[in-house]
């Protein structure tokens, strides 16, 4: 289909963000070099341009950061909740003030479209800090009692101590907010390791902590690779481990903390089913399917990566979906009209490519709209697979890319059985006009977040997290406090 409109480029200006040529680790309120002086480069995945060099933390740096967080804990946890709240409110406000700068930075470092960082990531980041700021002086009312040998006093729940937090590259600043906001509100101090490919927004956040006057050592940021993360979660003076990332790494962390007193929460992978019944409004469902799997290039743990469509409307729905995909604009993530940005790294692109090739090799039918990919950077065209069965690898493995596997069903029971036929249990979607069917199906799905007639909606008040191998614990809402309290 020929495009109806040609678009002129509409890039967001990079001038709003000033990236330094190098960054150190943020420990005890200071930027410092790594103990062995090592650095690594962070790239723009859209152009492969080097954005900056950042320090590569070693075990000795983890020691230093945890020690700083431990020193800061005594005073921070003893502050009245109302004072901790004001620091967090300050942070929320500064994020709002600097949100365009941070959106451009995030788009540069991550490759996701500016439309998403500007309209989704950054507003949610600020909202998350604002939400948990308000909890800091209301913890007595949150319904978590303090643990005592005689049972529970029902008041004054205590923080855990030092939280070691490891976050992924798909929503770098948002995952930072999900980790740091509840931890600080409840009186913990943190050592956070951003992902290797997206360290910059966390380092800018360190500067926001400085502007907010946050006491030194309360927030420490260690950039580095998986070895730094492993050292952090294994550190004997860390009381709480929070991880968002792959299920394989999550299992390894669970083994590492076994037999210790460390409290653990894990937010891991998914293979979300997006179920479309024959009475669903097709146009809205198509928009929901697109949001479900192409938001953030499908690099979303709760993506609706399996489309379960009722057999009788399969052809009609797929025709509409293909028409819609043909209108998606892939390219410069800084362009305000871009729908599909770059894949975050060469490594992730290779994984997506391999799984898509396996889908073809196993007999599923591959389709992509006509779509020109830029010559530099890491790109993958929006892709559909039809004729997928439950035995196909692309129906079972998390692809974490813009690849949708389409399966069919005949009855609601079959839809539920197929949706639940996965070791994951993070998200699901239901599209139908029939209210009672929504409720009945939602009841039977074994997933932590279910969207009915919508998809990929997030809010700081809404608990998020998985069943089964998608992890445990919840982030967001009152539920999210529990992960950071001694209850």
């Amino acid at each position, binding site marked *: 289909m020929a495009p109806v409109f040609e678009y002129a480029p509409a890039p967001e200006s990079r001038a709003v963000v000033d990236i330094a040529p190098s960054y150190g680790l943020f420990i005890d309120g200071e930027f410092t070099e790594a103990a062995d002086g090592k650095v690594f480069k962070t790239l723009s995945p859209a152009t492969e341009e080097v954005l900056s060099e950042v320090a590569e933390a070693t075990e000795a740096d983890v020691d230093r950061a945890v020690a700083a967080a431990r020193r800061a804990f005594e005073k921070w946890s003893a502050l009245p909740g109302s004072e901790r709240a004001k620091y967090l409110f300050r942070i929320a406000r500064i994020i709002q003030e600097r949100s365009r700068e941070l959106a451009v930075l995030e788009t540069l470092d991550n490759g996701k479209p500016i439309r998403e960082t500007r309209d989704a990531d950054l507003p949610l980041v600020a*909202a998350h800090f604002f939400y948990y700021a308000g909890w800091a002086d209301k913890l007595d009312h949150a*319904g978590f*009692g303090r*643990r005592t*040998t*005689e*049972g*529970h006093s029902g008041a004054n729940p205590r923080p855990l101590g030092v939280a070691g937090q490891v976050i992924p590259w798909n929503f770098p600043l948002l995952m930072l907010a999900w980790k740091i906001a509840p931890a600080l509100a409840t009186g913990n101090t943190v050592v956070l390791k951003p992902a290797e490919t997206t360290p910059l927004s966390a380092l800018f956040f360190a500067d926001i902590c400085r502007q907010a006057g946050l006491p030194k050592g309360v927030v420490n940021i260690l950039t580095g690779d998986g070895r730094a993360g492993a050292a952090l979660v294994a550190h004997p003076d860390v009381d709480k481990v929070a991880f968002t990332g792959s*299920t394989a790494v*999550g*299992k*390894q962390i*669970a*083994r590492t903390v*076994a*037999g210790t007193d460390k409290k653990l929460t*894990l937010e*891991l992978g998914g293979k979300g089913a997006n179920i479309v019944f024959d009475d669903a*409004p097709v146009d*809205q469902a198509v928009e929901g399917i697109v949001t479900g799997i192409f938001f953030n290039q499908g690099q979303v743990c709760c993506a609706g990566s399996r489309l379960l469509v009722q057999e009788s409307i399969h052809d009609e729905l797929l025709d509409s979906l293909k028409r819609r995909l043909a209108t998606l604009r892939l390219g410069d993530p800084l362009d305000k009209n871009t729908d599909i940005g770059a894949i975050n790294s060469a490594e992730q692109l290779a994984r997506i490519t391999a799984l898509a090739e396996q889908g073809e090799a196993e007999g599923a039918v591959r389709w992509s709209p006509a779509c020109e990919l830029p010559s530099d950077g890491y790109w993958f065209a929006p892709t559909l697979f039809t004729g997928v069965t439950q035995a196909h690898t692309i129906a079972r493995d998390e692809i974490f890319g813009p690849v949708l596997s389409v399966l069919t069903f005949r009855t609601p029971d079959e839809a539920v059985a197929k949706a639940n036929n996965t*070791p994951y249990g993070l998200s699901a979607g239901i599209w139908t*006009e029939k209210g009672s069917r*929504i409720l009945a199906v*939602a009841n039977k*799905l074994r*997933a*932590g*977040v*279910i*969207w*009915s*007639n*919508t998809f990929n*909606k997030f*809010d700081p*008040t*809404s*608990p*998020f*997290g998985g*069943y*089964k*191998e998608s*992890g*445990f614990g*919840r982030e967001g*809402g009152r*539920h999210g406090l529990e992960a950071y309290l001694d*209850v």
Partner: protein
Amino acid sequence: MSDKPEKHGRLSVFKTYKLYVGGKFPRSESGRVYEVTASSAADAAGKGDWLANAPLASRKDARDAVVAARKAFGGWSGATAYNRGQVLYRVAEMLEGRREQYVREVAQAEGLSRARAADQVDAAIDRWVWYAGWTDKIAQVVGGGNPVAGPFFNLSSPEPTGVVAVLAPQESSFLGLVSVLAPVIATGNTAVVIASERSPLPALSLGEVLATSDVPGGVVNILSGRTAEIAAPLAAHRDVNAIDLAGADEALAKELEIAAADNLKRVLRPQPVDDWTAMPGIERMTAFLETKTVWHPTGALGASGSSY
């Protein structure tokens, strides 16, 4: 039991203690038993006195119990909370009627005076009543609507995790057992319980009460034997969703927690409990609950009649 021939010469009838799996009372498929003896300070029987040959459950018995628990999960988790509350209350009623039996068994198992054993049994019965009342309240305490910033009705509800392996406390053979089992099934989970290794008889007898209390077969499955031997396959089992390590020592708890990571079981680590008669909190329920959050659009009705 070890009752000696009475003066009038009547010989008592011993009970064959059996496992409780899927609502039935099988022996161990392995054919093995082990000798259970009275505790040292027992007033009913001296130290080392023979009480019974308890089944020495095997790995296969553990796997069979998981199959039974999984089969029962849909019905039990789908039952109304009111119904589960009535069933748990019925357990208390049945126990009350057999109170004397449990007082005797607990006294022998734990080496307690009759009066102290009675305190344990009374507390255990009252605990079933306590949890019976929780079944239709916990969802309101830990769930609820979330005021999201958008046109959505957003509701979080607790749901049972699934099949829970429970290592019952080693010392408190009956009250401890009830204190860890009742919260697991109150919320709709099903359980595979490993009884106290040294003192399994009160636990095995509990199966007889559960079987006559409208608890559907498979909701609770009770195994006796070597805790470490039975717990290992349960901790590694892919169709077990969670494990309560109350009855594990430090070394075993660590080993089992590592095995449990293979399918990311929810793990409740052993915690020191000085006094099982103390009022519990709700943590033994919330440890085995998932939170499901559902978003529904509430936007204004458009011309199409759709609200999204």
